[in-house]
């Protein structure tokens, strides 16, 4: 048994290597002979057996018409193969966003863009994993133009999650063949620790405690920085017609989308410092989950906060972008 498993495992690894070579990682994949695989489905094999049965029946009765029907059904098998190949061929799969993020334990929709100029039938999309039979798949039918599919995945462990190969398959063409492709679109998801409310402290307590112990110099420092002419505190989604001079080019260049810098808020909140030391003693993962919760809550309340993790310090600031920077830090901690 274990020997068999071993061999199975080896074959699988070999196949994975071969697959990596055959269908290399790319953000955009055009399906062709190179990356489409096709194999009879279970029903396909039963169908073939059935055709063979008919052939035997026809031969035994010396009945040419039954033989003729069996040939016809056999030819339909071949036609179905070509049909299901054509159903996938020249389809473009791509992913536009590369900064995907979410909280551990939640589910996240991965937007996959399928581009085509002709009708495609009955395809299923899912991310391949070792036991992909149980994967939650997106079943969609019949489309004939560009469309975006959202594939839900559930996020587990904090950190950077590289998504496995995306499988697009279709049984179209009478269900005789499974025609599929397995592409690596190089999608990574930044998984933040799951926000968890620390039982010992409420957010209100935390805020007041911080306010009392906050050092004046620090807050002053923050204020001066805030008043600097070059600094902006928030990125607002770009709207058509806005001045190009205000566009946050750095973000655009990174492919994070179009934002305009907004300068006009003056922050006069007392900064709150988040650090592992201020939290009650607990395993590090637990503490990170608490931190995640606190960051979200502070952001909701539009508080100014900074983050101190062992070596890194993030200066106090406010806003969505800032909270994401902090969350990224705790996601990648350790």
């Amino acid at each position, binding site marked *: 048994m274990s020997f068999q498993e071993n061999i199975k495992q080896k074959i699988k690894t070999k196949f994975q290597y071969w697959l990596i070579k055959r269908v290399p990682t790319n953000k955009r994949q055009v399906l062709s002979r190179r990356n489409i695989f096709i194999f009879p489905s279970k029903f396909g094999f039963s169908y073939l057996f059935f055709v063979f049965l008919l052939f035997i029946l026809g031969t035994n009765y010396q009945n040419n018409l039954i033989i003729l029907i069996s040939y016809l059904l056999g*030819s339909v098998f071949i036609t179905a193969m070509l049909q299901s190949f054509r159903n996938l061929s020249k389809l473009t799969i791509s992913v536009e966003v590369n900064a995907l993020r979410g909280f551990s334990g939640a589910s996240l929709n991965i937007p996959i863009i399928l581009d085509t100029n002709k009708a495609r039938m009955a395809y299923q999309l899912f991310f391949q994993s070792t036991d992909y039979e149980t994967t939650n798949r997106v079943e969609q039918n019949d489309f004939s133009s560009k469309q975006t599919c959202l594939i839900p995945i559930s996020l587990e462990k904090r950190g950077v999650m590289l998504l496995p190969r995306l499988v697009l398959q279709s049984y179209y063409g009478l269900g005789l063949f499974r025609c599929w492709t397995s592409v690596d679109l190089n999608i990574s998801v930044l998984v933040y620790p799951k926000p968890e409310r620390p039982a010992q402290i409420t957010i209100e307590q935390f805020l007041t405690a911080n306010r009392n112990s906050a050092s004046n110099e620090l807050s002053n420092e923050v204020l001066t920085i805030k008043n600097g002419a070059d600094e902006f505190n928030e990125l607002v989604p770009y709207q058509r017609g806005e001045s190009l001079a205000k566009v946050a080019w750095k973000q655009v260049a990174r492919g994070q989308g179009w934002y305009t810098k907004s300068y006009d808020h003056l922050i006069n909140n007392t900064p709150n410092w988040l650090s592992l030391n201020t939290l009650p003693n607990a395993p590090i993962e637990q503490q990170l989950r608490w931190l995640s919760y606190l960051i979200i809550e502070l952001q909701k309340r539009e508080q100014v906060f900074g983050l101190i993790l062992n070596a890194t310090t993030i200066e106090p600031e406010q806003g969505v972008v800032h909270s994401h920077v902090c969350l990224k830090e705790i996601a990648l901690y350790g």
Partner: protein
Amino acid sequence: MANTTRSSLKSGIKSLKNTGDVKRCELTLARNTQLLLMITLGLNCLTLVLELSGWLIAFIVISLLWQGSIYLKLIVQPNRLIKLLVSIVGLCLLALSAKQLGLLNSMVHLLVFSYLLKPLEIHSRKDFYIQVLLGVFVLVTSLVFIQSLYFMLLILVILMANFMLLMSVFIQAKKQTDLAKSVTLTLVQSIPLTLILFIGFPKIAPFWQMPSAKNAEVGLSDEVKVGDIANLALSNKLAFRVEFEQTPPNYQQMYWRTLVLEDFDGTKWYQENSNNHNNKYWRQQLKRKAADISVISGLSKLPTVSYQVIAEPSYQKWLFALSIMTEAESEQHKINKEVNFTLSSQKILNSVTSYQVTSALTNHINVVLSPTERARNLMITDSNNRALADEGERFRSLYPDDLTLVNAVLTRFNQQNYHYTLNPPRLKDNNLAEFYFETKAGFCEHYASSFTYLMRASGIPARMVLGYLGGEYNERGNYFSVYQRDAHAWSEVWIEGKGWLRIDPTAAVNPERVERGFSLSLQQEQSLLSNDFFSSFNTRLWFNQLRYMLDAVDYQWTKWVVGYSINDQINVIKGLYLFMTEHKQKLILMSILLMLLVVAFIVFRTKANKIKFSPEVLLLNQLVKLVASLSIVKTPSMTVDHFALQIIAIKPETEVAVFTFINTYKKIQYQSLSPEQKAEEISRLTYQFNHLKKSLR
């Protein structure tokens, strides 16, 4: 990047597993599919309706109504108990009727029954697939019983419906016509390969014996009483078709000799089996089954004719041939040459059977008569026909010569008031004497059997022969069709020096019947008596023309598709090969031309593709390549503005150059310009591009 967790997805997926499973467990078919399921169920069963017993047909109707009500949401799916009850009742009925149905029909019943029950048990895709395959199997099984062209066309149409059912799961098309279209496309695309396989794939001999269809016997039977053939003559069913290799013989010569009956028990003629006979001499003679052609003298001088007979299934063994058959062979069945120079098949003819015969055309078989044979062919039982036996003795006393005696009897038939009719008055106890002396009206078997009896009574060995006479010539197909109504009976008398001489007493009464077929009055009689609406004796010309045409099509179908054999296969392939070698040069030339065309087409296409790009697009592409080194990628979905902004984001100092270039580009692309303006703008664009190139460095 410490926490790279590819595997973390696995556990995440597990949590979602349950919902996914629930979804897959309960397969709910779309309404479209449900409707198709019912339609195909009805159609598939319909093809077998002639073979099914009444109770199963009732089951089919009930099942359809049931599913129809479920479809219309009048009732819900039945529960387990009802399903179990229905299946038990069905199986009991099947077991009860199995014996009388025979093996094949019982299996067909079982198949249809399971096909009917399966729709109640469709829980997953797998069940659905099984249902579809069962349906196709039911459909194809019907071809065991019927093989006509029109039936095959019907089967193909129903097969299409089955594929539509299968495809309806994959296409959520709103209209059935869309489904039909794509299925038709699939089937049409499959035809070339099907034909290649049918023509070329070697035909294989049967692997094992299959239970054969138990059908009512059709046509002549090996026992004949007066009145039997007159009944058969009312049937317009096809018996067999014949295609001659040479010029066909005259109508009067087309006596299709099928059965020789040598024994008479006072009412019926029959052929004694060796099993139930005590006389050891006869048993000895009957043992010698195979005919020995060499005993016939003068055979080599006779003109021969070769022909192919394609016999319809008769569910009997005997075959048809002109007298005297010398060679006969078939690929489907082994053919026996009987001792009386008739043909029979080793197995019952339950499908279309074709065989090749060579006959020496003659009206007598010159063989020596052994004493036992002579005794057998002289035996009469006079209990029933005393008067006729006396008549025979009277004739003998008048005419000592055998041939003169025969002619005297025929003259009596001709000159006295004898009638040839399909509707003779009933004879008491099949009394031949009553016919001969009193009623004087009868069909061929009346004349043949009373003539044979009379001959035996007067001491001339004589026997009854059954077969068919003539045939209908089809000009379009150059073949003869012989129908059941052409069934005929005549006599053979043994004359010293001539052997068994064919004497047809019918010719003396109604010469037209022997020369051309049914006379007009006989045709009217036949049309009146047979309740066949499409009687082939319809006198309208256009109707006959149409009938001939359809029959010719059916003949070609039967010959080339239903009867396509290994020999045909070899001949067709040989023919193709010969054709290829004969037209070698032409074919080579054609293939070269074809290849050139393909090459030209490819070249043309690539050129066309190149021309498609206008200069401004080419310039833009150059720019795209140029900035690729700055790791700016222009995806096809990205607009040029977007692209420009990307360049500016990386190299802000090129802003002006980029914007001027892009603006000119857009102007050329999207504004309607005259050709001169366009040329001007393009030269400007080229200049701007060069400028941009410099500034990018």
